[in-house]
Protein backbone atom coordinates (compact mmCIF):
# COMPACT_ATOMS: atom_id res chain seq x y z
CA UNK A 1 0.00 0.00 0.00
CA UNK A 2 1.36 3.40 -0.96
CA UNK A 3 1.59 6.18 1.55
CA UNK A 4 -0.96 8.97 1.17
CA UNK A 5 0.52 12.09 -0.39
CA UNK A 6 0.70 15.13 1.84
CA UNK A 7 -1.25 18.05 0.50
CA UNK A 8 1.04 20.86 -0.65
CA UNK A 9 0.75 23.85 1.63
CA UNK A 10 -2.00 25.81 -0.04
CA UNK A 11 -0.88 29.21 1.15
CA UNK A 12 2.32 29.36 -0.89
CA UNK A 13 1.95 31.00 -4.26
CA UNK A 14 4.70 32.08 -6.64
CA UNK A 15 2.36 34.71 -8.00
CA UNK A 16 -0.56 36.01 -5.92
CA UNK A 17 -3.04 35.43 -8.76
CA UNK A 18 -1.91 31.92 -9.64
CA UNK A 19 -2.66 28.55 -8.02
CA UNK A 20 -0.70 27.47 -4.93
CA UNK A 21 2.76 26.06 -5.70
CA UNK A 22 2.60 22.39 -6.66
CA UNK A 23 -1.15 22.15 -6.27
CA UNK A 24 -2.23 21.65 -9.94
CA UNK A 25 0.47 18.99 -10.37
CA UNK A 26 -0.47 17.27 -7.11
CA UNK A 27 -4.17 16.98 -7.88
CA UNK A 28 -3.62 16.02 -11.53
CA UNK A 29 -6.76 14.96 -13.37
CA UNK A 30 -8.34 12.64 -11.01
CA UNK A 31 -9.43 12.01 -7.51
CA UNK A 32 -6.31 11.73 -5.37
CA UNK A 33 -6.24 11.06 -1.67
CA UNK A 34 -4.22 13.50 0.38
CA UNK A 35 -3.29 13.99 3.98
CA UNK A 36 -4.28 17.44 5.19
CA UNK A 37 -2.36 19.46 7.75
CA UNK A 38 -4.90 18.67 10.49
CA UNK A 39 -4.38 14.95 9.96
CA UNK A 40 -7.56 14.15 8.03
CA UNK A 41 -7.31 12.20 4.79
CA UNK A 42 -9.50 13.44 1.96
CA UNK A 43 -9.96 12.89 -1.74
CA UNK A 44 -9.51 15.89 -3.96
CA UNK A 45 -11.68 15.91 -7.06
CA UNK A 46 -10.56 18.41 -9.68
CA UNK A 47 -12.14 17.52 -13.05
CA UNK A 48 -15.08 19.54 -14.35
CA UNK A 49 -17.39 16.51 -14.56
CA UNK A 50 -16.17 15.13 -11.22
CA UNK A 51 -16.76 18.39 -9.35
CA UNK A 52 -20.25 18.72 -10.83
CA UNK A 53 -20.98 15.15 -9.78
CA UNK A 54 -19.75 15.51 -6.20
CA UNK A 55 -21.58 18.80 -5.66
CA UNK A 56 -24.89 17.60 -7.10
CA UNK A 57 -25.06 13.91 -6.07
CA UNK A 58 -27.14 13.44 -2.91
CA UNK A 59 -24.81 10.62 -1.81
CA UNK A 60 -22.26 13.29 -0.94
CA UNK A 61 -23.42 14.95 2.26
CA UNK A 62 -22.57 18.37 3.66
CA UNK A 63 -23.22 17.03 7.16
CA UNK A 64 -19.95 16.61 8.94
CA UNK A 65 -21.51 14.26 11.50
CA UNK A 66 -19.34 15.28 14.44
CA UNK A 67 -16.23 14.14 12.58
CA UNK A 68 -13.09 16.26 12.57
CA UNK A 69 -13.51 18.96 10.00
CA UNK A 70 -11.11 18.66 7.11
CA UNK A 71 -9.16 21.84 7.13
CA UNK A 72 -6.25 23.21 5.25
CA UNK A 73 -4.66 24.64 8.36
CA UNK A 74 -4.35 23.45 11.94
CA UNK A 75 -7.07 25.73 13.25
CA UNK A 76 -10.02 24.43 15.20
CA UNK A 77 -13.52 24.35 13.81
CA UNK A 78 -15.40 27.43 14.87
CA UNK A 79 -18.90 26.35 14.06
CA UNK A 80 -21.00 23.95 16.13
CA UNK A 81 -22.07 21.28 13.60
CA UNK A 82 -25.62 21.40 14.95
CA UNK A 83 -25.89 25.19 14.88
CA UNK A 84 -29.54 25.97 13.96
CA UNK A 85 -29.74 27.75 10.63
CA UNK A 86 -26.38 26.47 9.34
CA UNK A 87 -27.60 26.08 5.79
CA UNK A 88 -24.26 24.70 4.60
CA UNK A 89 -24.31 21.77 7.01
CA UNK A 90 -27.63 20.12 6.16
CA UNK A 91 -28.98 18.16 3.21
CA UNK A 92 -32.19 17.20 1.47
CA UNK A 93 -35.57 18.28 2.82
CA UNK A 94 -34.05 20.04 5.87
CA UNK A 95 -31.87 22.10 3.58
CA UNK A 96 -34.77 22.89 1.23
CA UNK A 97 -36.82 24.16 4.16
CA UNK A 98 -34.22 26.87 4.81
CA UNK A 99 -33.04 27.45 1.28
CA UNK A 100 -36.29 28.00 -0.57
CA UNK A 101 -37.58 31.05 1.31
CA UNK A 102 -34.13 32.62 0.93
CA UNK A 103 -34.09 31.88 -2.80
CA UNK A 104 -37.24 33.92 -3.10
CA UNK A 105 -35.40 36.89 -1.63
CA UNK A 106 -32.61 36.50 -4.23
CA UNK A 107 -34.84 35.99 -7.27
CA UNK A 108 -33.45 37.28 -10.55
CA UNK A 109 -36.21 39.89 -10.83
CA UNK A 110 -35.58 41.12 -7.29
CA UNK A 111 -31.89 41.48 -8.09
CA UNK A 112 -32.76 43.40 -11.25
CA UNK A 113 -34.94 45.75 -9.21
CA UNK A 114 -31.94 46.36 -6.98
CA UNK A 115 -29.62 47.34 -9.86
CA UNK A 116 -30.37 51.08 -9.88
CA UNK A 117 -29.61 51.23 -6.15
CA UNK A 118 -26.38 49.27 -6.64
CA UNK A 119 -25.41 51.70 -9.41
CA UNK A 120 -26.12 54.62 -7.10
CA UNK A 121 -23.94 53.18 -4.31
CA UNK A 122 -21.12 52.51 -6.80
CA UNK A 123 -21.37 56.03 -8.28
CA UNK A 124 -21.34 57.68 -4.85
CA UNK A 125 -18.21 55.77 -3.86
CA UNK A 126 -16.46 56.54 -7.16
CA UNK A 127 -17.38 60.23 -6.69
CA UNK A 128 -15.65 60.26 -3.32
CA UNK A 129 -12.64 58.41 -4.69
CA UNK A 130 -12.33 60.87 -7.58
CA UNK A 131 -12.76 63.91 -5.33
CA UNK A 132 -10.06 62.72 -2.91
CA UNK A 133 -7.71 62.13 -5.82
CA UNK A 134 -5.03 59.55 -6.58
CA UNK A 135 -3.58 57.47 -5.12
CA UNK A 136 -6.51 55.61 -3.60
CA UNK A 137 -7.03 52.20 -2.06
CA UNK A 138 -9.60 50.45 -4.23
CA UNK A 139 -10.49 47.99 -1.46
CA UNK A 140 -11.68 50.61 1.05
CA UNK A 141 -12.93 53.01 -1.66
CA UNK A 142 -15.25 50.56 -3.41
CA UNK A 143 -14.70 46.81 -3.01
CA UNK A 144 -15.49 46.50 0.71
CA UNK A 145 -18.28 49.05 1.21
CA UNK A 146 -20.30 48.04 -1.87
CA UNK A 147 -21.37 44.51 -0.90
CA UNK A 148 -21.78 45.30 2.79
CA UNK A 149 -24.08 48.27 2.08
CA UNK A 150 -26.06 46.26 -0.47
CA UNK A 151 -26.53 43.22 1.77
CA UNK A 152 -27.61 45.46 4.66
CA UNK A 153 -30.30 46.99 2.44
CA UNK A 154 -31.35 43.63 1.10
CA UNK A 155 -31.68 42.28 4.63
CA UNK A 156 -33.62 45.41 5.50
CA UNK A 157 -31.43 46.84 8.26
CA UNK A 158 -33.12 50.18 9.10
CA UNK A 159 -30.95 53.30 8.59
CA UNK A 160 -30.75 54.04 12.33
CA UNK A 161 -29.15 50.62 12.93
CA UNK A 162 -26.83 50.74 9.90
CA UNK A 163 -23.77 52.22 11.56
CA UNK A 164 -23.69 49.78 14.48
CA UNK A 165 -24.55 46.93 12.12
CA UNK A 166 -21.69 47.75 9.73
CA UNK A 167 -19.20 48.16 12.57
CA UNK A 168 -20.19 44.88 14.23
CA UNK A 169 -20.22 42.99 10.95
CA UNK A 170 -16.80 44.47 10.13
CA UNK A 171 -15.44 43.20 13.45
CA UNK A 172 -16.81 39.74 12.79
CA UNK A 173 -15.61 39.29 9.23
CA UNK A 174 -12.81 41.76 8.88
CA UNK A 175 -10.10 39.86 10.72
CA UNK A 176 -8.87 36.35 11.20
CA UNK A 177 -9.35 36.25 14.93
CA UNK A 178 -9.39 33.38 17.40
CA UNK A 179 -12.44 31.21 18.02
CA UNK A 180 -13.24 33.20 21.20
CA UNK A 181 -13.06 36.51 19.35
CA UNK A 182 -15.25 35.16 16.59
CA UNK A 183 -17.87 33.98 19.07
CA UNK A 184 -17.80 37.30 20.95
CA UNK A 185 -18.34 39.26 17.72
CA UNK A 186 -21.06 36.85 16.55
CA UNK A 187 -22.88 37.30 19.88
CA UNK A 188 -22.64 41.07 19.52
CA UNK A 189 -24.00 40.94 15.98
CA UNK A 190 -26.85 38.69 17.14
CA UNK A 191 -27.67 41.33 19.79
CA UNK A 192 -27.74 44.02 17.10
CA UNK A 193 -29.98 41.89 14.89
CA UNK A 194 -32.50 40.72 17.52
CA UNK A 195 -34.40 44.05 17.91
CA UNK A 196 -34.43 44.50 14.12
CA UNK A 197 -36.04 41.09 13.72
CA UNK A 198 -38.54 41.93 16.47
CA UNK A 199 -39.50 45.18 14.68
CA UNK A 200 -40.08 43.34 11.40
CA UNK A 201 -42.16 40.71 13.13
CA UNK A 202 -44.29 43.42 14.75
CA UNK A 203 -44.71 45.21 11.42
CA UNK A 204 -45.59 41.97 9.61
CA UNK A 205 -43.78 43.08 6.44
CA UNK A 206 -42.06 40.75 3.96
CA UNK A 207 -40.53 43.21 1.50
CA UNK A 208 -36.94 42.64 2.64
CA UNK A 209 -35.00 39.53 3.61
CA UNK A 210 -35.37 39.81 7.39
CA UNK A 211 -39.09 40.57 7.06
CA UNK A 212 -39.52 37.68 4.67
CA UNK A 213 -37.78 35.27 7.05
CA UNK A 214 -39.56 36.66 10.13
CA UNK A 215 -43.06 36.62 8.70
CA UNK A 216 -43.26 34.15 5.81
CA UNK A 217 -41.43 31.12 7.22
CA UNK A 218 -41.47 28.75 10.18
CA UNK A 219 -37.84 29.62 11.07
CA UNK A 220 -37.02 29.76 14.77
CA UNK A 221 -35.41 32.89 16.18
CA UNK A 222 -32.05 31.06 16.46
CA UNK A 223 -32.24 29.96 12.83
CA UNK A 224 -33.24 33.39 11.68
CA UNK A 225 -30.41 35.19 13.46
CA UNK A 226 -27.83 32.70 12.28
CA UNK A 227 -29.11 32.85 8.71
CA UNK A 228 -28.77 36.64 8.80
CA UNK A 229 -25.18 36.30 10.00
CA UNK A 230 -24.55 33.69 7.31
CA UNK A 231 -25.95 35.90 4.56
CA UNK A 232 -23.89 38.76 5.81
CA UNK A 233 -20.74 36.64 5.98
CA UNK A 234 -21.29 35.27 2.51
CA UNK A 235 -22.05 38.68 1.07
CA UNK A 236 -19.43 40.67 2.88
CA UNK A 237 -15.99 39.59 1.83
CA UNK A 238 -16.41 37.25 -1.11
CA UNK A 239 -17.80 39.82 -3.54
CA UNK A 240 -15.37 42.40 -2.26
CA UNK A 241 -12.41 40.09 -2.85
CA UNK A 242 -13.59 39.15 -6.31
CA UNK A 243 -14.09 42.74 -7.45
CA UNK A 244 -10.50 43.34 -6.35
CA UNK A 245 -9.13 40.16 -7.91
CA UNK A 246 -10.91 40.82 -11.22
CA UNK A 247 -9.30 44.25 -11.36
CA UNK A 248 -5.87 42.80 -10.52
CA UNK A 249 -6.15 40.14 -13.23
CA UNK A 250 -7.03 42.88 -15.72
CA UNK A 251 -4.04 44.99 -14.57
CA UNK A 252 -1.83 41.95 -15.24
CA UNK A 253 -3.40 41.34 -18.68
CA UNK A 254 -3.59 44.70 -20.48
CA UNK A 255 -4.89 43.10 -23.69
CA UNK A 256 -7.91 41.81 -21.76
CA UNK A 257 -8.43 45.12 -19.99
CA UNK A 258 -8.48 46.74 -23.43
CA UNK A 259 -11.38 44.44 -24.42
CA UNK A 260 -13.39 45.69 -21.43
CA UNK A 261 -12.47 49.32 -22.12
CA UNK A 262 -13.51 48.94 -25.75
CA UNK A 263 -16.93 47.46 -25.01
CA UNK A 264 -18.06 47.93 -21.40
CA UNK A 265 -21.63 47.05 -22.43
CA UNK A 266 -20.49 43.39 -22.46
CA UNK A 267 -19.41 43.57 -18.81
CA UNK A 268 -22.16 41.07 -17.89
CA UNK A 269 -20.62 38.31 -20.01
CA UNK A 270 -17.07 39.34 -19.08
CA UNK A 271 -17.85 38.94 -15.39
CA UNK A 272 -18.74 35.28 -16.05
CA UNK A 273 -15.36 34.71 -17.70
CA UNK A 274 -13.52 36.58 -14.95
CA UNK A 275 -15.36 34.52 -12.34
CA UNK A 276 -14.50 31.27 -14.12
CA UNK A 277 -10.86 32.16 -14.51
CA UNK A 278 -10.30 33.81 -11.12
CA UNK A 279 -11.88 30.97 -9.16
CA UNK A 280 -9.98 28.43 -11.26
CA UNK A 281 -6.68 30.20 -10.62
CA UNK A 282 -7.34 30.37 -6.88
CA UNK A 283 -7.45 26.59 -7.12
CA UNK A 284 -8.45 26.25 -3.50
CA UNK A 285 -10.03 23.11 -2.18
CA UNK A 286 -12.50 24.52 0.25
CA UNK A 287 -15.83 22.82 -0.47
CA UNK A 288 -15.99 19.55 1.40
CA UNK A 289 -18.44 16.67 1.36
CA UNK A 290 -18.66 13.24 2.88
CA UNK A 291 -19.70 10.13 0.98
CA UNK A 292 -22.68 8.40 2.58
CA UNK A 293 -22.38 5.42 0.20
CA UNK A 294 -19.70 3.98 -2.06
CA UNK A 295 -19.64 6.17 -5.19
CA UNK A 296 -17.46 6.09 -8.28
CA UNK A 297 -16.09 9.46 -9.40
CA UNK A 298 -13.94 9.74 -12.52
CA UNK A 299 -13.37 5.98 -12.40
CA UNK A 300 -12.19 5.94 -8.78
CA UNK A 301 -14.18 4.29 -6.00
CA UNK A 302 -14.86 6.64 -3.12
CA UNK A 303 -15.99 4.66 -0.08
CA UNK A 304 -18.84 5.48 2.28
CA UNK A 305 -17.50 7.72 5.04
CA UNK A 306 -14.63 9.14 2.95
CA UNK A 307 -14.04 12.88 2.90
CA UNK A 308 -14.09 14.58 -0.48
CA UNK A 309 -12.93 18.06 -1.27
CA UNK A 310 -13.56 19.63 -4.64
CA UNK A 311 -11.04 21.95 -6.21
CA UNK A 312 -12.51 24.65 -8.41
CA UNK A 313 -9.35 24.45 -10.48
CA UNK A 314 -11.94 22.45 -12.47
CA UNK A 315 -12.84 25.81 -14.04
CA UNK A 316 -9.58 25.50 -16.00
CA UNK A 317 -10.52 22.03 -17.33
CA UNK A 318 -10.60 21.82 -21.15
CA UNK A 319 -13.77 19.80 -20.81
CA UNK A 320 -15.52 23.05 -19.83
CA UNK A 321 -14.23 25.18 -22.69
CA UNK A 322 -11.32 25.34 -25.15
CA UNK A 323 -8.13 27.12 -23.96
CA UNK A 324 -9.59 26.95 -20.46
CA UNK A 325 -6.30 28.08 -18.91
CA UNK A 326 -6.58 31.44 -20.67
CA UNK A 327 -8.62 34.43 -19.64
CA UNK A 328 -10.56 35.45 -22.76
CA UNK A 329 -13.07 38.25 -22.31
CA UNK A 330 -14.35 37.70 -25.83
CA UNK A 331 -15.59 34.25 -24.85
CA UNK A 332 -19.33 33.61 -24.46
CA UNK A 333 -20.41 32.71 -20.92
CA UNK A 334 -19.87 29.03 -20.09
CA UNK A 335 -21.32 26.86 -17.29
CA UNK A 336 -18.45 27.52 -14.90
CA UNK A 337 -18.29 26.43 -11.27
CA UNK A 338 -17.33 29.81 -9.85
CA UNK A 339 -20.46 29.87 -7.69
CA UNK A 340 -20.30 26.15 -7.00
CA UNK A 341 -22.90 23.69 -8.24
CA UNK A 342 -25.69 21.52 -6.85
CA UNK A 343 -28.31 22.38 -4.23
CA UNK A 344 -25.79 24.38 -2.18
CA UNK A 345 -24.71 26.60 -5.08
CA UNK A 346 -24.08 30.17 -3.90
CA UNK A 347 -27.43 31.58 -2.82
CA UNK A 348 -26.34 35.12 -3.55
CA UNK A 349 -24.87 34.41 -7.00
CA UNK A 350 -27.30 36.71 -8.79
CA UNK A 351 -26.65 39.51 -6.32
CA UNK A 352 -22.89 39.04 -6.67
CA UNK A 353 -23.24 39.11 -10.45
CA UNK A 354 -25.13 42.41 -10.32
CA UNK A 355 -22.57 43.98 -7.98
CA UNK A 356 -19.56 42.75 -9.94
CA UNK A 357 -21.02 43.74 -13.32
CA UNK A 358 -21.99 47.24 -12.21
CA UNK A 359 -18.86 47.72 -10.09
CA UNK A 360 -16.37 46.64 -12.73
CA UNK A 361 -18.00 48.47 -15.61
CA UNK A 362 -18.42 51.71 -13.67
CA UNK A 363 -14.87 51.58 -12.33
CA UNK A 364 -13.23 51.50 -15.75
CA UNK A 365 -15.75 53.87 -17.32
CA UNK A 366 -14.99 56.42 -14.62
CA UNK A 367 -11.24 55.83 -14.63
CA UNK A 368 -10.22 54.51 -18.07
CA UNK A 369 -6.56 54.91 -17.12
CA UNK A 370 -6.85 53.14 -13.79
CA UNK A 371 -3.62 51.32 -12.96
CA UNK A 372 -1.87 49.86 -9.93
CA UNK A 373 0.29 52.25 -7.92
CA UNK A 374 2.57 49.38 -6.89
CA UNK A 375 3.22 46.09 -8.72
CA UNK A 376 0.39 43.58 -8.27
CA UNK A 377 2.91 41.05 -6.97
CA UNK A 378 3.98 43.39 -4.17
CA UNK A 379 0.53 44.00 -2.71
CA UNK A 380 -0.57 42.32 0.54
CA UNK A 381 -2.89 39.35 0.18
CA UNK A 382 -5.09 37.85 2.85
CA UNK A 383 -5.66 34.15 2.80
CA UNK A 384 -7.73 32.44 5.48
CA UNK A 385 -8.69 29.60 3.12
CA UNK A 386 -12.30 30.67 3.01
CA UNK A 387 -11.63 33.94 1.32
CA UNK A 388 -8.61 35.15 -0.58
CA UNK A 389 -7.98 38.64 -1.78
CA UNK A 390 -5.80 41.72 -1.73
CA UNK A 391 -5.85 43.57 1.60
CA UNK A 392 -5.17 46.84 -0.20
CA UNK A 393 -5.13 47.77 -3.88
CA UNK A 394 -3.33 51.11 -4.28
CA UNK A 395 -4.37 52.66 -7.60
CA UNK A 396 -3.75 55.79 -9.63
CA UNK A 397 -5.53 57.11 -12.74
Amino acid at each position, binding site marked *: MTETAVCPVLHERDHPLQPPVGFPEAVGDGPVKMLWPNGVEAWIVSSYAGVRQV*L*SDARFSTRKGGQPEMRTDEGETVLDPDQPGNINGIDGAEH*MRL*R*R*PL*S*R*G*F*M*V*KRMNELRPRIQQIVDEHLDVMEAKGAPADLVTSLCLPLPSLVIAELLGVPPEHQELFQATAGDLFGKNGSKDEYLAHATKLAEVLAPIVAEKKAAGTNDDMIGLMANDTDFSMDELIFLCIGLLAAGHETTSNFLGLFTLHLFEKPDQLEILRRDPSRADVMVEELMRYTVGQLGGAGLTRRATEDVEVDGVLIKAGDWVSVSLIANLDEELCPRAEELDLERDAV*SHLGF*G*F*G*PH*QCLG*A*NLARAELQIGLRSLFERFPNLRPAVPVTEMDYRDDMITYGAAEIPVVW
Partner: protein
Amino acid sequence: MTVRIDQTKCIGSGQCVLAAPDVFDQSDDDGLGLVLVPEPSAELLPGVRDAVDRCPAQVVSLEE
Protein backbone atom coordinates in the same frame (compact mmCIF):
# COMPACT_ATOMS: atom_id res chain seq x y z
CA MET B 1 -39.75 19.36 -27.67
CA THR B 2 -41.14 19.88 -24.19
CA VAL B 3 -39.48 21.83 -21.39
CA ARG B 4 -40.08 20.74 -17.81
CA ILE B 5 -38.91 21.75 -14.36
CA ASP B 6 -39.07 19.26 -11.52
CA GLN B 7 -40.33 21.63 -8.86
CA THR B 8 -39.90 19.09 -6.08
CA LYS B 9 -36.13 19.51 -6.40
CA CYS B 10 -35.88 23.09 -7.72
CA ILE B 11 -33.86 25.38 -5.42
CA GLY B 12 -34.96 28.62 -7.06
CA SER B 13 -31.47 29.65 -8.21
CA GLY B 14 -32.89 31.44 -11.25
CA GLN B 15 -30.16 30.16 -13.57
CA CYS B 16 -32.83 29.12 -16.11
CA VAL B 17 -34.16 32.69 -16.13
CA LEU B 18 -30.66 34.02 -16.85
CA ALA B 19 -30.10 31.43 -19.60
CA ALA B 20 -33.48 31.80 -21.34
CA PRO B 21 -35.53 34.72 -19.99
CA ASP B 22 -38.22 34.24 -22.66
CA VAL B 23 -38.85 30.65 -21.61
CA PHE B 24 -38.49 30.69 -17.82
CA ASP B 25 -39.55 32.82 -14.88
CA GLN B 26 -39.54 32.48 -11.10
CA SER B 27 -42.73 32.32 -9.07
CA ASP B 28 -43.43 35.37 -6.93
CA ASP B 29 -44.83 33.04 -4.26
CA ASP B 30 -41.83 30.82 -3.68
CA GLY B 31 -39.07 31.79 -6.13
CA LEU B 32 -39.17 28.40 -7.84
CA GLY B 33 -38.62 28.07 -11.56
CA LEU B 34 -41.62 28.30 -13.90
CA VAL B 35 -41.82 27.29 -17.54
CA LEU B 36 -43.52 30.10 -19.49
CA VAL B 37 -43.16 28.45 -22.90
CA PRO B 38 -43.35 24.65 -22.59
CA GLU B 39 -42.91 24.07 -26.34
CA PRO B 40 -40.34 26.68 -27.37
CA SER B 41 -39.58 27.51 -30.97
CA ALA B 42 -36.26 26.54 -32.54
CA GLU B 43 -34.57 29.90 -31.93
CA LEU B 44 -35.19 29.58 -28.18
CA LEU B 45 -33.68 26.10 -27.92
CA PRO B 46 -30.01 27.10 -27.44
CA GLY B 47 -31.02 29.11 -24.36
CA VAL B 48 -33.09 26.20 -23.05
CA ARG B 49 -30.16 23.79 -23.52
CA ASP B 50 -27.96 26.27 -21.65
CA ALA B 51 -30.54 26.30 -18.85
CA VAL B 52 -30.52 22.48 -18.71
CA ASP B 53 -26.72 22.55 -18.41
CA ARG B 54 -26.48 25.40 -15.92
CA CYS B 55 -29.26 24.42 -13.52
CA PRO B 56 -27.38 23.66 -10.27
CA ALA B 57 -30.16 21.34 -9.08
CA GLN B 58 -30.32 19.58 -12.48
CA VAL B 59 -34.10 19.86 -12.63
CA VAL B 60 -34.62 21.45 -16.04
CA SER B 61 -35.23 18.96 -18.83
CA LEU B 62 -35.86 19.19 -22.55
CA GLU B 63 -37.61 16.14 -23.91
CA GLU B 64 -37.05 15.83 -27.64
